[in-house]
C-alpha cells in the first residue's frame, strides 16, 4: 500500500506516493532523480548516502522516505545557489579534497552543516564531524584542508533577494 508524502527538497515542495518500505535514498535517487546521494554499505557505516534533514546530516540508506514526510531535505544538488558553487564545493576542488568523488557529495554536505553550526572549527572538530563518513581515496587530509579553506573563505555575495524569478 502506498502512502502520500510531501517533502521539501532543495527548497521545492515534492509530493509523491511511496511504498512504506521505500528507502529515502531510493526515493531521492529514483523518484526525484537526485543522483548525488550514493549507496555504499547498506549498514549506516560509510556515509556516502548522507543528506541533510532539517539541516542535520542523516544517512538516507537507513531512513524510510515516509519518515521524511513534512520535513526539509538538502542534497548536493541544492548546494549551488544562484548558479554559484557553495564555498565548500569550491574548496574541495581547490584543495584536491576528492579523488573518485563517490563520498564527496555526502562529505561536502556534512562539512556545510558543520560550518553552519561552527563557522571556525579546529582540525580536531572537523575530523570528528566527518568521522561518520568514509573516504578511501584521499586520506582525509585534503578534506580537512578544504573545510578549513571554506571556513576562511569570504561569505559569498548575498543571494539576490527579491529578484524576479
Amino acid at each position: 500500500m502506498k502512502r502520500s508524502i510531501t517533502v521539501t527538497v532543495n527548497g521545492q515542495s515534492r509530493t509523491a506516493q511511496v511504498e512504506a518500505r521505500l528507502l529515502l535514498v531510493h526515493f531521492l535517487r529514483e523518484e526525484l532523480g537526485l543522483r548525488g546521494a550514493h549507496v555504499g554499505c547498506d549498514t549506516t557505516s560509510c556515509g556516502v548516502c548522507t543528506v541533510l534533514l532539517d539541516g542535520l546530516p542523516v544517512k538516507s540508506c537507513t531512513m524510510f522516505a515516509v519518515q521524511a514526510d513534512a520535513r526539509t531535505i538538502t542534497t548536493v544538488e541544492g548546494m549551488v545557489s544562484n548558479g554559484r558553487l557553495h564555498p565548500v564545493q569550491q574548496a574541495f576542488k581547490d584543495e584536491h579534497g576528492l579523488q573518485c568523488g563517490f563520498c564527496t557529495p555526502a562529505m561536502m554536505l556534512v562539512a556545510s552543516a558543520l560550518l553552519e553550526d561552527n563557522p571556525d572549527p579546529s582540525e580536531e572538530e572537523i575530523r570528528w564531524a566527518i568521522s561518520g563518513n568514509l573516504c578511501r581515496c584521499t586520506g582525509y587530509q585534503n578534506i580537512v584542508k578544504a573545510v578549513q579553506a571554506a571556513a576562511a573563505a569570504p561569505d559569498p555575495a548575498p543571494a539576490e533577494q527579491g529578484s524576479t524569478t
Partner: protein
Amino acid sequence: MTATTQQPEQTGWLGRSVTRKEDDRLIAGRGNYIEDVVLPNMLHMAILRSPYAHARIKGIDASAAQALPGVVAVVTGDLLAEHKLAWMPTMSGDTQAVLATDKVRFQGQEVACVVAEDRYAAHDALDLIEVDYEPLPPVVDPFRALEEGAPLIRDDKEGQTDNRIYHWEAGDGEATDRAFADADRVVEIDTHYPRSHPAPLECCGCVADVNPASGRATIYMTSQAPHAIRTVFALVTGLPEQNIQIISPDIGGGFGNKVPVYPGYVVATAASLLLGRPVKWIEDRTGNLISTGFARDFHMHGELALREDGTMLGLRVKMLSDQGYAYADAQPSKFKAGLFHMVTGSYDLPAAHVITDGAYTNKAPGGVAYRCSFRITEASFLVERLVNTAAYELGMDPAELRRRNFITADQFPYTSATGFVYDSGDYGPALDLALEKVGYRELREEQARLREEGKLLGIGIASMTEALGAGPSRDYDILGIKMFDSAELRVHPTGKAILKLGVRHQGQGHETTFAQIVAHELGIPPEDVLVHEGDTDNTPYGLGTYASRSTPTAGAAAAMVSRKLRDKARKIAAHLLEVAETDLEWDNDRFSVAGAPEKVSTIQDIAFAAYTNHPQGMEAGLEGVHYYDPPNLTFPFATYIVVVEVDADTGQWKPRTVVAVDDCGVRINPMIVEGQIMGGLTEGYAMSAMQQITFDEDGNCIGANFMDYLLPTAWETPHFDLYDTCTPSPHHPLGAKGVGESATVGSPAAFVNAVVDAVAHLGVRDIDMPVTSDRVWEAVRAARQDG
C-alpha cells in the same frame, strides 16, 4: 642535510598543480556512476549466496520465487550450464564457477540469481529460493590444505589430486645456501600478511543491454580494465568481439577490486541475452566483501644472512599463499606469485632464493593487486620487517643498517638477485631527508628519556623500492594479452583536442594529468584537451588502470602520440610559413622561423590548416595513435618514518608523526601525486592497524560488512608530512614513474616497525598485522614473562 635530487624546474605544463578537470561534475553530484545508469525497460538482478563454505548442492527449488509478482526469471547454474556458461576462466587461467552447479566452495558463493521488475521484488524473491545443501568439511587453513588427506576442494578439475595450485621459485638456491654458510648471523621472521579487501566505497555492478535483433551487447560495468574484459567476455560468452562494447562509467574507487570478471557481470549479460531486456546488477556491501577479489593473505618465512658488521649476504624466503577456491590473481602469467620475488627491495643482496606455493582453501577467490603491483606489497613488508629485526639482533640502528646495504646510485641499472633490472634510484638522500624532517636523533633521545619514565615511544622506518608500470611485453601479459598501453590523439580544426586512452581511471586524475602531458608536448592548454577513457568502442586497446601502471604506460603513450603529431605539425608549419622544416624551431605551442622569430605558426594555426590548407600529397588531419611498450618497469622508491606512542597498560597505540619522502621521478601534477601518496599512506595505516578478513573454523567469513571489517575514519587517520626527491626514470619519455600505490606498499612496515620499536627493548621482535591493542598488550605481557 638536504636531498641531492630535486624536481626539475617547472617548464610549461609539467610539474604544475592544475586543479582537476573532473571535479566540476563530481562536486556538483553529476558524476555518472554505475548506479546512475538507467535504461528503458530495465530489469534488476539480485544474487543468492551460499551460507556454507563447502557443501554439495542436492537441489534448488525456485518455484516460489518464480511465482512472486514482479519476478521475471530465476537463473541457476544448471540453466547456465545448458549454455556452457556455468564456469568461466580467471585472470590467472584457472576456472571459477559463475553459478554453482555441483558444490559451493566458499561462504558467499553465487548460487542463483533473480531477475525482476524492481530491486525490491528481486531481493524478496531471494528469500523464497530453497536450496538443499549437504555440508562438507571445509578447508580453512592453507597449511592443512596441503596435508595428506585434506578434503579435495577442486574435484571438478580433471587431474587435480590435491589442493596445491602452484610451486614457483626465483633466484639461486645454491648461491643462497653458500651465502648462509658464510654468514656470521642469520635472523628470521615468520609473519602473515592478513587477508584484506580493497573495499572501494562503490561496490561492483553492471547494466547489461543485449539487443536480440542486432546481437550487440553494450555492458556498462565497474571495470578498471574494460578492454581486457571485452576480450574475456568474447571468450566466455562466444559473442563476437566486435559486438561487445564495455563502457566503464565513473568509478567510485577501484584499488584492484574492479579488475576481475565477476559472476554478477556474466549472469546479468546472460539474462539480458535470454530475456531481451537490459539487466542491472548492483552488488551490496556484503556481496562485495564476501565474494569479490580479496588481497594479500601470504604466510611468509624470511631469513636474512649477515656479517657481524651488518653487511647483508643473502635472503631466503618461503611463502604460502592462501588463494581461496580459485587461483584468480589478475597478474602477469609468467610469475606465479606476482612480483613477490622483488623481495630483495632496496638492498644490494648478492644472493636470494624465493620459494612460493599456492593453496586452494574454501574461501573466496581473488588475490587482486590491491593498490599494489602484483604481490609486491607483501614482499616489501617482509624485507622491511626483516631488516628491522636484524638491526635489533645486531644492535645496530635500523636507519644505519639500511643505509649500509642500499644499492648505491652508481650501481644503476642494477640487476637484482631475482632478476629485476632496477632502472634508477638514489635511496640514501631519501632516507636522509626523512630522518632530518622527522628529527630522528632527537626522537631517539626522547625515546630513551621516556623509557626511563615508563612511557613507550616507537620509531619505525621503511625504505621501499618497487617495480611499477607493467610492463615490457616480453615478460608481462595477462591471459596472453601483452601489457602495453595506448593513446589516440585527435586535434580538431579549432585547435581543441580529444585524447583517448586504453586505461580507465577511478579517481587518479587522468582527465587532468594526461591533458597536461598533451599540453606539455603540443602546447594545447589542458582545458582544451578532453580526456576520454573507459569506452571500448571509442578508445584504443589497453590493459587498464591498476598496479600504478597508467602514467608509466598510457602517460608515455600520450607523450609519444603528441610527439608524432608535432612531427606532422612541423611539416604543415613549413608549408604555411613557406620555409624548410629544418628552419623551424619549436617553442611551447608554436613553430617559429630561425632568425625570423616574428614568423610563427601556432599549434592552433596548424590544426586549422590540417583540415583546410594541408600540403598537397600529405594526408589531411592531425590525428594519431601510439601503442607504448615500455622497455622496462619504473622503480620509484620512498622512505616512510612513523612515530607512535604506545600505552603499555592497554596496548593502544597512536601515530604521532608520519613523514613520507617519495621519489617517483618527474611529477606531472604534484598536487595529484601528493593526493595519491596520502591515500596510499592511509591504506598502509589501515592495513597495519585494523583491516583484516578472517574466518572461523567452519569457514564463516568474519569481515563481511563495515561493522566487522574496519576502515579508518578521519578521526584515527594521522596527519602526513610529505617530501620528495626526484630521480627521473631514464626510459620514460617524461622521466615519470608510477606512484599511486607506493605508500600502500611501503608504509605498513613503517607502522608495524614503529610499534615493535616501542617495545623492542622488552624483547618483542614481532607483532602480526593488524597490530591491534590486544596483540600489543599480549606481546608485552609475554616478553615480560620471558624476561
